[in-house]
């Protein structure tokens, strides 16, 4: 079983990233559980989402406390090192939205022997959407960093999700691909 925890802010599509990952894994024959963790938070509040992926049926319905991977969708949340790395398994994976990762994160990753990946999702989003939409680029980055699902499956799922407005589908596909291609391991 592989567990991913997503960190972002309300309105950034954190829940969508997590769900799209789950849907892609589902399509590749895996069992999945995706759940948002939110209360009445509005735009801007820190929110989390969980994705659980397994080759066996998933019965566990609790939150995720010891994730195999953490994805930080909002660059400003990098500095909340304690909160975002909490419970991350040793040798796990950290994927952050940054042109250069925050030193606290770098240090934490070292301590945990975690792979630290970073991508400049801000520039990608501004280029593709003209607005800071990070969720699909960070999904692309995670897919590359984890190798958990194939990029083609993810692109299909993303295209379908935004399919009603084909332009939106196109730009999201582009954003995923760009992030997939430019994400780097520190």
């Amino acid at each position, binding site marked *: 079983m592989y567990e991913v925890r997503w960190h972002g802010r309300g309105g950034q599509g954190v829940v969508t990233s997590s*769900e799209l990952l789950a849907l892609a894994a*589902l399509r590749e024959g895996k069992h999945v*559980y*995706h*759940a948002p963790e939110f*209360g*009445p938070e509005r735009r801007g509040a820190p929110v989390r989402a969980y994705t659980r992926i397994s080759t066996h049926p998933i*019965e566990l*319905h609790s939150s995720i406390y010891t994730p195999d991977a953490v994805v930080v969708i909002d660059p400003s949340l990098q500095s909340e090192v304690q909160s975002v790395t909490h419970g991350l398994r040793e040798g796990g994976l950290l994927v952050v939205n940054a042109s250069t990762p925050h030193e606290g994160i770098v240090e934490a990753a070292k301590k945990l022997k975690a792979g630290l990946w970073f991508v400049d999702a801000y520039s990608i989003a501004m280029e593709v959407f003209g607005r800071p939409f990070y969720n699909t680029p960070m999904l692309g980055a995670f897919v590359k960093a984890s190798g958990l699902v194939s990029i083609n499956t993810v692109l299909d799922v993303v295209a379908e999700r935004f399919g009603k407005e084909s332009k939106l589908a196109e730009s999201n596909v582009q954003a995923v691909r760009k992030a997939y291609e430019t994400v780097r391991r520190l």
Partner: protein
Amino acid sequence: MKGKLVGMNGDRAVAFAAKQADVDVISAYPITPQTIIVETLAEYVNNGELNAAFIPVESEHSALSAAVGASLAGARVFTATSSQGLALMWEILWIAAGLRTTIVMAMGNRALSPNINIHCSHDDAYAARDTGWLQFFAENVQEAYDLTLMAFRISEDHRVLFPSIVNLDGFILTHATEGLYVLDDEDVKAFLPKKKPVNPIDPSKPMTYGPLDLFDWYMEHRRLQYASFMSTPPVIKEVFEEYGKLSGRRYTPVKTFNVEGAEVVLMVLGSSAGTVRYVSRKLAEKGKKVGVVSLTQYRPFPVRELIEALSGASVVAVMDRSVSFGSPGAQLFMDTSTALLKAKRRPLLFNVVYGLGGRDLTPGDVEKIVMKAEEVLRRGESPEEPVWVGVRGEE
């Protein structure tokens, strides 16, 4: 597994089932965490994917009232609610059942106020327990979908004619995406043909619905309703079996896991059943046997099946996602205790209160409950009050 594998959250899965059931009338008022259900159905209707009347009522009280009217008129009717909405409907719950409507209602289980909370408790489900509605609990998104379809079939069966509630845990299932197999429309159609209403409103056969009963007939009407309600389990079983043949997914009123030879058994409702079973598997790897019993059918309470499931245990921890103030235990505990009075051999029973208002039930919590059960067994005595798990201030 028959059908198509898709990924949906619990709310959407329920809405999709209602659409496949080709409901005629949806009467509902939004309330978190159920809202996605009615939003999805409104979308289906407005996009022409579902030929139904969507009544956007001004309150839950009216939601159920309109549903009662529509059901009496002969329509297949669906609604959904949660928590405070259920509380506002409460008066009409009794009437919907007594008038023998066949409404199917999804309930995104949520804690009752105060303090106001939008997350999962089973307060709402329990509040409906005496009202004459059939009640089912889904453990995951697949079950939420399956049970919604089966609920229509069961409720509308002429040997039943009672409304149904399909419970799914707020957020944990309503907002959680899982893979599920959905049936082909054609299969659903065959399983669930057009509703054949009994005594529908018909100007050519005028009847009086919901008259006044004084002391001379009220009790006889209740006697009849009781007898009818208590005769529904064989039909439920029959529908479970038929659906099993159709879908490849077998349902039983009581679900058991590892109970054979287990001294310790944990009993639970809803999505927590999966979490408890997960822990039970882990413990089994370490050579410890812990049984898990959960209910798919909550009302009528499956007494006989439950006695059978629990008869081998030495101690049973009955887990309630609720509190009952001043009662000898929370609601599932009281039901279970009473049911076991009819058993030849009774295990030690104690009550666990957990997960209120969405408090997560972690695998660690479950292990604590197992340890507590072992302690009860050692002492040979149950604690007088429920054991609170996962709350600050208790070990």
